[in-house]
């Protein structure tokens, strides 16, 4: 259990985190979701005792991250965002080094990393700098797990990684969760939210919402429709001209539209689009996803 109470952190004039409080349950995959500069990395550094908070308190499994920082460091596995291992050491040398730093050996905790390590074992004599992105990521994860941490903190492990490697990475996290590890992971990819047990949506150092992905989607307040037409550029323009539209954004294969009032007549919209000269119009009620929710919450935040 990790409890965060009234945490604030400021760098010179920039407020990185403003009075945030929440808790993370044992053995859950907790996602911190938000764009660059939202405060994700700052939070992770506070949790891993790398930074001191200006205000507030974080307790990781009962240990205060400031006064008990040594104990916290013992139970945490941390993979920083720009973590890139020792490029000039081989896979095996990297792993052996981190094992010995944590007073353990590869063999001792082999069962924990076995699944992941097996995939990179064929390359164990290759220097880390020559591994592909996905392989590097697996090695980094193995290194973070080598001392069997109770809490695993991963700062944007999937940024800049292709969709396939990302998917494989999340499968690994699922398996680790089954071994009883609490996992805190940050990502700028909103679609990864659905893979977490609970997520915190963060923006500008503030938490917009914390809940399970399902509940966040359920609580989406607006009526959302997906529109398609032949010329998407024109479609977006015309939708924005429509008197009742509130937000109009390209979203996957269609355009997502919300309205100023929720009882908009779809037929009326369709007629408007036809009159503007759009063809092959297709309008459906859309199921919002986390990204819709995030955008809506961002808007609400701005209006406050």
């Amino acid at each position, binding site marked *: 259990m990790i409890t965060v109470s009234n945490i604030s952190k400021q760098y010179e004039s920039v407020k990185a985190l403003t009075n945030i409080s929440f808790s993370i349950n044992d053995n859950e995959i907790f996602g911190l979701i938000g764009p660059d500069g939202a405060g994700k990395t700052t939070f992770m550094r506070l949790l891993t005792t790398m930074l001191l908070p200006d205000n507030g308190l974080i307790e990781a499994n009962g240990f205060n991250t400031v006064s008990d920082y040594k104990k916290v460091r013992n139970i945490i596995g941390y993979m920083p965002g720009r973590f890139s291992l020792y490029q000039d050491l081989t896979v095996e040398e990297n792993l052996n080094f981190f094992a010995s730093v944590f007073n353990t050996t590869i063999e001792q905790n082999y069962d924990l990393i076995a699944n992941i390590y097996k995939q990179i074992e064929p390359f164990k004599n290759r220097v880390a700098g020559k591994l592909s*992105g*996905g392989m590097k990521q697996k090695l980094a994860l193995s290194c973070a797990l080598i001392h069997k941490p109770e809490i695993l903190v991963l700062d944007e492990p999937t940024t800049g990684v292709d*969709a*396939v490697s990302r998917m494989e990475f999340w499968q690994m996290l699922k398996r680790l969760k089954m071994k009883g590890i609490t996992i805190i992971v940050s990502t*700028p990819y*909103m679609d990864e939210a659905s893979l977490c047990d609970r997520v915190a949506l963060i*923006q500008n150092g503030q938490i917009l919402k914390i809940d399970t992905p399902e509940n966040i989607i359920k609580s989406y307040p607006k009526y959302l429709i997906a529109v398609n037409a032949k010329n998407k550029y024109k479609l*977006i323009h015309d939708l924005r001209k429509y008197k009742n539209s509130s937000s109009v954004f390209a979203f*996957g294969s269609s355009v997502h539209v919300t309205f100023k009032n929720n009882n908009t007549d779809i037929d009326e919209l369709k007629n408007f689009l036809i009159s503007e000269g759009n063809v092959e119009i297709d309008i459906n009620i859309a199921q919002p996803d986390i*990204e819709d929710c995030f955008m809506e919450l961002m808007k609400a935040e701005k209006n406050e």
Partner: protein
Amino acid sequence: MNIITVKNLVKKFGSFTANDNLNFEVRKGEIFGFLGANGAGKTTAIRILCGLSTPTSGEISVAGYNVYTQTEELKKNIGYMSQKFSLYEDLTIYENIELYGGIYGLGLKKIKHRTTELLSNLKMYELKDTLIGKLPLGWKQKLAFSVAMLHEPAIVFLDEPTGGVDPVTRRQFWDLIYEASNSGVTIFVTTHYMDEAEYCDRVTIMNNGIIEALDTPNNLKEKYSAKNMNEVFIKIARPNITH
């Protein structure tokens, strides 16, 4: 009309083949998505198309210029923007624009005119004397895109332009792309956001140095019986994984 034609492009680094016989065309004014796993050979291909690297073999022409012999003319007619390098943080917005205008040989008058046009379009005119470093990431990226278009190139190459940007700004960025494409500029874009692949007119997916698929997003989804581009991508990049 094709603005990029690539015939039998091969690029080898020693015994390693980064691009293995690529063939494709990009039409004028289209948004061309260039996807692939890390290490699939995207960056190599983009470097060749931008005239930064010479192919081992193949016939390639970009904006009517030969990538072997006319790299200087080619570079004058393309724009380039990547997530890693956008603008100089310690220069103001105007100084950055002036610098790029100067690099592409625009006159001072033209630079002033384009600056006004570009900044009012982005609603950032009042900020023209602000240091780039003080701007939020999303604004920087939008600005960087506009600066890449400053010399009115025929093609703009965008290498992961929206990495780490918030969802609203990401869409505003795509608004800019649509606008540019609508005015006839060709957009060549790479991304790891699979929803962005849907915004492209046509998409190629590279894997292990070859082009595995090239079509409109809708046709690809149909062909691979997938409900979104993410599934298409995964089916192509890891054909052995079953769902």
